[in-house]
């Protein structure tokens, strides 16, 4: 559902704005949070589901997740506010799992089936019957019928029908999941297999019933701001254009400061550092023949998937610090007492920041959608926000936001540092495509390659916590890249330092 603003999107964003407002204004959280579902779903009649009570109950669980609390099944009787006072703290409040199914919001869509539509003409040729390897298709009263018990879901009938009358119906969440992590509970509702899930968040943006949501840290971040802690933000390169045409990159920096955050750095600083490090690594390890290929490491969902599903080639995933961590370490060096909030496009960074090795570097992670909720809660008027120049990074680092940008940045560094070295690049976006690329690598067909993997189609600008349509965001990122003083990562001030 990317690129189409739907009631699901509206509800998700209203929840963030309401929770941000609640945190900023303070008061009796236990009482105030119970009122929010009535503000988001006013009146006495249901708008999207069979009952207004159910609509509000689902909002209630989304509010809990936005506060970092656990989601509950319908069988548990408890107020929305149960535990909210414990979550009203000025430090990270997070217990796994990150991505959650609100089970009673799930439509229990059929997992996968092939069905014959009214477009069937009952033609004489009946290629659907002839091509089926298990005799699952028959003709009845001039209409093809698929016997679901026999069907092995090979899809050959779909390709054979000259009227395109046979369709594949699949759960949108499963379809969006590139690691087959969506299973079913006893009632046929979606259930996430957390051994497989890499928290890319694509299921939550593709569920048409809004039944999947991730936990947020905005409630705790705002408490930290209100407690007077020094908070430094690092903002991922995909932020450009996310907050509308009035919110230019320079204004976004100042707008973030108006939220109570002391300073803002571009994560593209860390991207520049990573690009140069991976360029050296590629030349010293891959070109020299010590290892067969190098896979980039900046997208945590991609790198975790590679390690989980292809353990034998896991050592060839770059060990370079991700841009988030590299930038956070620079910030902590300059501001040793500060807390760092990473503002980015996706859920998976929340998981990355919870790793033991990263926990001390990054204190909070929020998405662009969640930041937007904070802007709305604080009534930030971008047209009145002064510009505060962002000039931390090179064009190459800023390009990490868009699919292909990571490989381009590394390639640029290799060309600059090792002009005589020839390199080969492959890249994939979307986890299912990434899997195919890694399968080729495992089979020895990507030897000598630098491989870029991006879990989200389009790259980071297609992340689950983004706001802008992908094409629009890509154009604006490119424009911002061109404005950088330097274009090659090796020219970064932070490299020479």
């Amino acid at each position, binding site marked *: 559902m990317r690129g189409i603003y739907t009631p699901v999107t509206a509800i998700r964003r209203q929840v963030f704005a309401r929770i941000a407002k609640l945190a900023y204004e303070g008061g009796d959280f236990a009482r105030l949070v119970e009122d929010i579902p009535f503000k988001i779903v006013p009146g006495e009649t249901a708008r999207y589901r069979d009952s207004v009570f159910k609509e509000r109950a689902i909002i209630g669980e989304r509010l809990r997740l936005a506060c970092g609390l656990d989601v509950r099944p319908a069988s548990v009787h408890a107020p929305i506010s149960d535990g909210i006072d414990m979550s009203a703290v000025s430090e990270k409040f997070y217990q796994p799992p990150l991505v959650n199914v609100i089970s009673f919001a799930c439509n229990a869509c059929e997992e996968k089936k092939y069905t014959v539509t009214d477009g069937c003409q009952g033609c004489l040729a009946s290629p659907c019957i002839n091509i089926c390897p298990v005799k699952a298709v028959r003709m009845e009263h001039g209409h093809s019928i698929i016997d679901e018990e026999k069907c092995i879901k090979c899809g050959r009938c779909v390709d054979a029908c000259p009227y395109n009358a046979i369709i594949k119906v699949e759960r949108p969440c499963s379809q969006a999941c590139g690691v087959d992590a969506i299973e079913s509970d006893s009632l046929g509702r979606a259930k996430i297999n957390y051994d497989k899930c890499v928290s890319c968040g694509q299921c939550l943006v593709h569920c048409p019933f809004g039944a999947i949501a991730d936990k947020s840290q905005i409630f705790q971040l705002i408490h930290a701001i209100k407690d007077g802690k020094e908070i430094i933000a690092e903002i991922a390169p995909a932020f450009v254009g996310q907050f509308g045409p009035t919110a230019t990159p320079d204004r976004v920096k100042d707008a973030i400061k108006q939220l109570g955050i002391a300073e803002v750095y571009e994560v593209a600083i860390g991207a520049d550092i990573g690009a140069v490090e991976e360029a050296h690594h590629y030349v010293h390890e891959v070109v020299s023949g010590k290892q067969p290929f190098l896979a980039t490491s900046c997208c945590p969902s991609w790198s975790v998937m590679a390690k989980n599903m292809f353990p034998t080639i896991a050592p060839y995933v770059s060990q370079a610090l991700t841009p988030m961590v590299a930038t956070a370490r620079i910030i902590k060096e300059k501001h040793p007492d500060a807390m760092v909030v990473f503002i980015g496009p996706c859920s998976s960074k929340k998981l990355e920041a919870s790793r033991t090795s990263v926990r001390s570097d990054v204190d909070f992670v929020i998405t662009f959608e969640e930041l937007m909720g904070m802007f*709305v809660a604080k009534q930030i008027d971008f047209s009145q926000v002064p510009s505060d120049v962002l000039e931390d990074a090179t064009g190459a680092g800023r390009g990490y936001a868009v699919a292909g940008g990571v490989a381009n940045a590394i390639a640029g560094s290799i060309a600059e540092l090792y002009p005589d070295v020839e390199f080969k690049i492959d890249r994939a976006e979307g986890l299912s495509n990434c899997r195919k690329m890694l399968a080729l690598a495992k089979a020895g067909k990507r030897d000598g390659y630098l491989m870029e993997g991006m879990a989200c189609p389009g790259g980071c600008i297609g992340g689950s916590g983004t706001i802008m349509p992908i094409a629009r965001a890509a154009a604006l990122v490119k424009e911002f890249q061109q404005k950088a003083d330097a274009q090659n990562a090796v020219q970064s001030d932070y490299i020479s330092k």
Partner: protein
Amino acid sequence: MKVLHVDVCTCAECVMNGCMDIVDAIESLKKLKSDVKIKTQIIVSTKPCVGDALHYDKSPIVSVGKKIIEHANAQTVMSQIMELTSKDVKRS
């Protein structure tokens, strides 16, 4: 050729509530001009604010010609555009 101005508010509330998707929807309508035979030129502009300031409960706000649409969405805006240009429309 007649001109129809469509102004889309891009304040924080309106962006959060999907105003940029409305812009995309109008742009897509312009591409369909030949199919629906609209002769009016549609000019879409984004504005820092349309209507009253701090319109949290009314966003997104879009003005189509002289009409202000509150709680706008792609459907209501495109429908208003089609209504205002209906005299020019000759469906094939």
